């Protein structure tokens, strides 16, 4: 199990960041990803594997002041 944006996600550990985003239907827009408090650059999404217990944040831009 891993935690993504504060929610538990089953059966995602072992996937790469790229595989996770693809398989979970994240919109293909400008995203930034952090795993266990560290930013994972887009170029490293394919090779960064999500380990059991990983804490993942996936963020995007929204309207704001």
């Amino acid at each position, binding site marked *: 199990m891993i935690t993504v*944006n*504060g929610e538990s996600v089953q059966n995602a550990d072992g996937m790469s960041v790229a595989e996770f985003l693809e398989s*979970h*239907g*994240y*919109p293909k*827009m*400008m*995203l*930034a990803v*952090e795993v266990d*408090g560290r*930013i994972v*650059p*887009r170029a490293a999404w394919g090779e960064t594997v999500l380990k059991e217990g990983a804490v993942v*944040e*996936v*963020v*995007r*831009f*929204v*309207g*704001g*002041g």
Partner: protein
Amino acid sequence: MNQDTWTLGGHTFHSRFILGSGKYDLNLIKASVEQGGAEIITLALRRVNTRPEENILDYIPEGVTLLPNTSGARNAEEAVRLARLAREMGCGDFVKVEIMHDSKYLLPDNYETVKATKILADEGFIVMPYMYPDLNAARDMVAAGAACIMPLASPIGSNKGLATKTFIQILIDEIDLPIIVDAGIGRPSQACEAMEMGAAAIMANTAIATAGDIPAMAGAFRKAIEAGRSAYLSGLGRVLDRGASASDPLTGFLHD
């Protein structure tokens, strides 16, 4: 062509209107940017959910500088984290540091903002700190590497105008960086007044977002900001302490 430019972190801008993108329909962003003549637009960073959603970046005209903010940060550490994530999006090095932990008045924490400014400036960000207009804290922001100072005019989203006018004037007079009045400006006349005082630019969101005709209000702000800037450059006429001063010749009256 307007030759009255200003620079921020080595980037040159003509427009002195920074537009917020919060609280209104994405479909109105393009028209608001165009009518407002804005060259910089602010954005926030939030968690993505997996439902297909619109991408705000698709609505922002090309060539407009994106200015991510750190809204939601309650301390320097959280602001730094948000800034780094924003930069990872590949939209440049600008960041508006916004740190607050008071949910009633939404007042910025100057102390934490100085700390975040230092860390981010050292990492090469163009740091635009949003702050309560305090001269001592502003000097600390300058020493920390800020690219400008963004003092609030009145509480965020209040549209109350230049409640902190005297203190913003002190910053304009004493700080050798662009002073961008941010938060609380509710009307074009207030934006104009801040520009007459010598502000480098105005940032507005709620004033536009809560207007009847949003793009038209952005256009009204553009005109007011340009008018205020021209007035500042022209040098405002003096104010008499007392009495009056005729504008007409004091000779040749019909009764002479």
